């Protein structure tokens, strides 16, 4: 399924040939050629180029904490937002942004989402991170404790008595929970 993302990214990148490209290398060795304004949304890339004056266009910036799949998703988001900004520099078209974001995130599984959160955190894209954590919060809202444990991969380290006590004490909080 990552192929569809790759194709969409390549089509949008082909439209502007004159633009400066920045090469980014993911953890599994794949090199992405990213348009400069898009790449500059990645705070880590921006500061890398700002701090190191000796880098050239040919420098491939290694991103060891970002997988190829996460990179695809992140670039899709960043390109879309760059597109929005270019079309309407003053105010982003909110409804379009929202429609894009809804469609964008629906295709992601929980694992992919977490992977992207990690990547966005590493790449320091505050806007995306904010959006993704919001999505994650929405996904665990009103869910059972077991679902949340599975979602985050957390081991239950309570003894059965402790957990039963907690549940008894806050019985009201366990009512009306959605199906997993």
């Amino acid at each position, binding site marked *: 399924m990552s192929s569809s993302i790759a194709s969409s990214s390549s089509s949008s990148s082909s439209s502007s040939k004159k633009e400066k490209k920045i090469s980014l290398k993911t953890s599994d060795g794949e090199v992405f050629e990213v348009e400069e304004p898009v790449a500059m949304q990645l705070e880590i890339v921006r500061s890398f180029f700002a701090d190191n004056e000796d880098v050239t266009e040919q420098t491939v910036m290694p991103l060891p904490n970002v997988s190829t799949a996460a990179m695809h998703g992140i670039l899709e988001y960043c390109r879309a937002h760059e597109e929005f900004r270019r079309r309407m520099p003053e105010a982003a078209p909110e409804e379009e942004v929202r429609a894009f974001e809804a469609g964008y995130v629906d295709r992601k599984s929980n694992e992919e989402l977490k992977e992207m959160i990690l990547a966005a955190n590493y790449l320091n894209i505050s806007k995306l991170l904010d959006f993704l954590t919001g999505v994650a919060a929405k996904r665990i809202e009103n869910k059972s404790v077991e679902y949340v444990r599975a979602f985050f991969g957390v081991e239950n380290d309570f003894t059965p008595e402790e957990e039963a006590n*907690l549940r008894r004490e806050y019985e009201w909080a366990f009512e009306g929970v959605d199906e997993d």
Partner: protein
Amino acid sequence: MSSIHLPIEILYDILGRLPVKDLIRYMSVCKSWRDLITHPNFISTHMNLHRNTDGYVLFHNLVIRGDGLKCYSCLSRDKNYVEHSSFDIPFSCQSGDFQLVGSVNGLLCLSDSQYFGRTIYLWNPSIWKLKVLRSSCFNHNYCDIGNFSAVGFGFDHHHNDFKIVRIMSFGDFCQPYVEKEPPRAEVYSLARNSWRRIGIKAGCIAIDKFAKAVVVRGTIHWFASRTKEASGSNFILTFDFGSEEFREIMLPRYHYDGGRPEVSLRVLRESLALVVGWYNNYELVECWDVWVMGEYGMAESWTKRYSIVPEERCLRRYTFREEKKECIRAPTKKVALKGERQRRLPVQDLMRYRCIGGNIFSLFNKNNYALHSILEVPFSCETVDFRLAGCVDGLLCLTDSCHLFGRTIYLWNPSIWKLKVLRDSCFARQYREVGNFFVIGFGFHHQTNDYKIVRIMYFGNHFCQYVEKQPPKVEVYSLARNSWRSIGTNGGWYTRDKSSTVVVNGALHWFASKTADASADFVLKFDFSVEEFGEILLPNYHCDGKSFRVSVTVLKESLALIVCCLNGYGSEHCDIWVMREYGVTDSWTKQYSVVTEEICYRCLGIVNNNVLLLDCNRNEFLSYDLEKLQVKPIGVKEYLGDFTYFTESLVLYNEGFSVTPRKYLLVEGGIHLGKRKRSVIPSAAYLFSALVVNGAVHWLGYTTGESSNIALPVTFDFDYEKFGETNIGSREGFGFTLRRKKRRSAVLAAEQLIMEAEIIQFKGMAR
């Protein structure tokens, strides 16, 4: 299984977005989550994230649910005000009725509506956590009845702390505020969990007791006025939660001629705003002016931004202010009585009338029949209302009405609020049998300087014509001896008057008839000195073919008879016969014959030794002066029942126990029973009189559990050792079952209990 673990700061971010209920549930995900969620940093982060986003409009819903609790409705912040949720307050306060002090960051600050500010409840309804603040820096004055408080609740952003400021004013809550001493202020900090006293500029402010305070820029604002200047010098008192200082803000000149403003402080777009409602004389809103302080703290920047004129006239909303006035009806009365005692007015006639749901005596001045004051019986009896069996020297002799007449006798001196309840009898065995009924005579015996009660117990049916099954039994009570003594009698007579206070020549007198011969009437006398019954023969007062109503009375220290000659509707005329020489039948003379133009329904009796009171029209009473031979209407509009003389006295000062009418008895939370148990009073808080009836002590307590703030009787059952409420709407008319056992001990215990309760109150003040 998942392999990706999100770093803690991202988890923090995700969890911070969740609603509170989810967070509480996810505390049981694992230990580190629990620690994260309950950490103060997370709590404040979460609070900051949600402060301005998804809030609700919270309404204090005054509609009472079936369970009597107020419910809150959360309305969503959208413009359309859809009800989001409603929840009950899951705890109760002293008066059962909460008032919202404020709400900051999802934390509600509530207090008792009646004892506003005394106990403060911090409640977070999202996580069902409650903190009750009962302490104060001013413990000494804390529980005084007259004090009242203004409370402000806010958040100190600098110290990340919730704070409560309380200004305690010393005065009477029920009266217009008179500054007895400067108010005191204290601040509570949730982080420190303690109160700290702070200085307030002495002797100049009074805060509207009912006004809502508003918080702007971390500062709370009250509408206040200066006590040292004349009215109109209002200002805004501010308290900065950060610096913990009081300041003042000037008000704009919002007055115009001829209007009565009602001013309240509000917040409009983060600015301080003043809403001035103008009411006309019909309590209808003419318009509202909205003043906005453009630049905070600059008095020059007040501008009248809006003026709202309703198309249809708005009724003044039902504020709590009016409700309070209803609630304080009783205490103001007693204040009036206190003033009356100081004035030392001459003899008054006590007339009694019943108004709906009250046992009320009204005192009229005996010369001009002007209403002097109103006495409310501060205790209750077993039946719906009291009957006045007599009044001698300011000592009222009350008893139950109807079939319980005479069974329990309440000697009450309303001038000094002392009460003595007589429940025992020499004839304890027959005493409570159904069908037996009583006749009471109450008088003062000059030779022994003693108040005496004669009680005649008849064996028969109260509701049917009396047939003498066996001779009546008679007992005499002496207040000096404080005991009943049985008196022998042969019987053979039946007194028609239920009660008598006609004391002439050291003897009580009733109008009576022979049981053997129904037509043979006479005056039955009971001589206090020898404690024997005797007979006085009647004159021949008969007119042909007419029925009579005869009553025995006193006219200028002589025994007199009022003979009302009846036709079908009322009496045609009244004859007054006077026995010029006591005991000599021949000395009966018809001294007066009063013929009224209107039909007289009944003759109330003789007042002032020379004035006959007649009830002519049920609503109009006539006085007939026997010396001047003048008829005058009395300006008394109420329906008068029994009436009697009333003079103030100190009788019963030593014998009776105080019914504590003026002093409210505050029983906070309950009463300690010995050392082992504590009984918790449900909702009543102020109890102001106590009476033990049938194994239960009864108070009239102001319970504000219902909206009407009526006084409900609160009971404490000694057998079950618990409090209860008799949910009869009026303050009288308890229904109970008779429980004979423990009765005597209960009476004793009640008096102890009252003392104990007073001790509790005392402790509360000294605490």
